[in-house]
């Protein structure tokens, strides 16, 4: 199974997690096109060639360095695609309190304005491969509970998937429950030892040098990837997941190292 991953700075966690699981699923390969922030708008579909091209010259150069060719890719060369990025923050909707049409319209609006939809629509313009959407993890905190952390995401993911599936052959994959401290807050242990993927040639994964509470570590990525692969029918047995690396203790992480 060939999986195409297109994602933002949360992609390294998934890639490193997959590296741990790869021996358990030798038939699965993973190709990633990653960059920082919200860059999905820079892709453009080439319907005639069935390819997705990158318009932004710097990002295109990076893709050329990492993947060769002209930096574009053809979704139909893969069995499925994982889009990583954006939020699906759901303000909550108690169903049945409003008219059905209004509730449907709220869910539709939410789906159509999710950042991953920017890319999903482009992928759909050139291919019909199944797509999974993995949104950014909820933040962790060293200072106890974050504001709104207790707010239940409600049945948002189920409502979204009820529309995403039939309309786009896509599915939102939510955060593994075992990684959550509160409904909207990730356990601190998953935010320690996270890595970034350097944008320069020859650069591999490098640890974040400041106290980043947004990006998660390899263990988190492995838990998420294991969930995805099991959903895809891969027989992933028990895998020894590393404890949080913790090679940058609190004192070292609080200031950027220049």
């Amino acid at each position, binding site marked *: 199974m060939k999986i195409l991953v297109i994602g933002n700075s949360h992609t390294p966690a998934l890639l490193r997690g997959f590296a741990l699981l790869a021996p358990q699923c030798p038939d699965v390969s993973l190709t990633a096109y990653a960059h920082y922030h919200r860059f999905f708008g820079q892709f453009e579909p080439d319907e005639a060639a069935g390819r997705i091209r990158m318009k932004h010259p710097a990002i295109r150069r990076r893709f050329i360095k990492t993947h060769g060719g002209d930096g574009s890719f053809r979704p139909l060369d893969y069995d499925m695609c994982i889009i990583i990025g954006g939020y699906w923050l759901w303000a909550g*909707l108690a169903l049945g309190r409003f008219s059905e049409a209004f509730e449907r*319209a709220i869910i539709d609006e939410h789906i159509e304005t999710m950042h991953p939809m920017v890319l999903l629509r482009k992928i759909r313009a050139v291919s019909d491969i199944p797509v999974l959407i993995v949104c950014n993890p909820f933040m962790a905190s060293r200072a106890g509970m974050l504001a709104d952390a207790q707010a239940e995401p409600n049945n948002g993911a189920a409502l979204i998937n009820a529309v995403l599936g039939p309309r786009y052959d896509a599915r939102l994959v939510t955060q593994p429950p075992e990684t959550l401290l509160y409904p909207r807050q990730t356990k601190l242990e998953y935010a320690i030892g996270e890595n970034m993927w350097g944008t320069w040639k020859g650069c591999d994964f490098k640890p974040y040098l400041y106290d980043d509470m947004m990006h998660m570590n390899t263990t988190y990525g492995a838990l998420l990837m294991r969930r995805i692969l099991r959903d895809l029918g891969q027989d992933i047995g028990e895998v020894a997941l590393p404890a949080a690396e913790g090679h940058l203790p609190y004192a070292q992480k609080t200031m950027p190292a220049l």
Partner: protein
Amino acid sequence: MTTPNMTPPNPYSQQPATAFWRSAVADTHILDIQNIWQPRFTIDKSTRISTFGSCFAQHFGRELRSRGFAWVNGEMAPNAASAALRKKFGYDLFSARTGNIYTTSLLRQWLRWALEDAPQPGEAWQMGGRVYDPFRPAIEPDGFESVAEMRKSRDVAVAALAHVVRRSEVFTFTLGLTECWRRAGGEVEYPICPGTTAGVFSAEKYAHVQQGFDEVWRNLRRAITLLRRARPGLKILLSVSPVPMTATATGAHVLVASTAAKSILRAVADAATKRFDFVDYFPGYELVSQPPSRGMFYSANMRSVNAVGVDFVMQTFLKSITPAPSVADEYIDTLPGPEPKHALPQAEEVEDLACEEEILAAFGPEGGRDV
């Protein structure tokens, strides 16, 4: 020969400059007009204020909300909905999801449902397999799923209206129309002619009513009685919509019909302020529609009020309710201010209103298009 200085005192010689057309109006640009309204009661940002009425009331509610006033919202949409979606489904337009209440009789009808638990008609309009609420025909753009859903939704709006009345300190109502459609031989009134937005028109079933001063005034008095009974001490702020009628079913020229209607509404508002010391009238109608504004506050269709007009009305409202500046305020005013963050709104930028009455334009020649 006598000079003006030697004229013996008379009632006019005691009047302020604002009492004279030349000094108050002719020699003053409309944007500089002063003291056009002296509020009867205090309104500030902590005053719980609700807004209902004709389309123009939507501007008033939106501006109060955006300027940080304690606008009472009895029927809140979920946070997940965008502002555009809320508007499309009739949320945040008025303090409850009643839709436009154009006439005093329609206001009274809503208040009877909300405050007296009067029975609501069981009527439902069907179109294309969907159900429309005859009393809020545009509240759901594509109609309701079922009659039960429609009734449930209206019950929520009725309960919200009751809550808003009991919670408000100031209830504002913008009078819009005198013409209306009622069930033949009865008092049940619809905000729009059946068969225009939804439903099927039947001359046997529905009757056009042109209300005169007496009827408009009687219904307003009764509405005020209901309001004050439910919320003793409630202050009421009336205004008349400066938006002319879209169409008339009287056979008269629409300009003549519209002028007659606005004149009646203005007279009724005047009567109310004279009769009740807890009722006030804000002259937004005069600011927009009268000769000093030379029509500049209207859009190209000479009907919709443009953004500059809305802003001017709100600025006048805010200036009027704000106490006179202290010495310190006056000093601060002399200091150079920051560059304005936003340019003045362009004349045609005004946000569209949700106005059922506008559908009537579609029945005019060439679909009533504004050209």
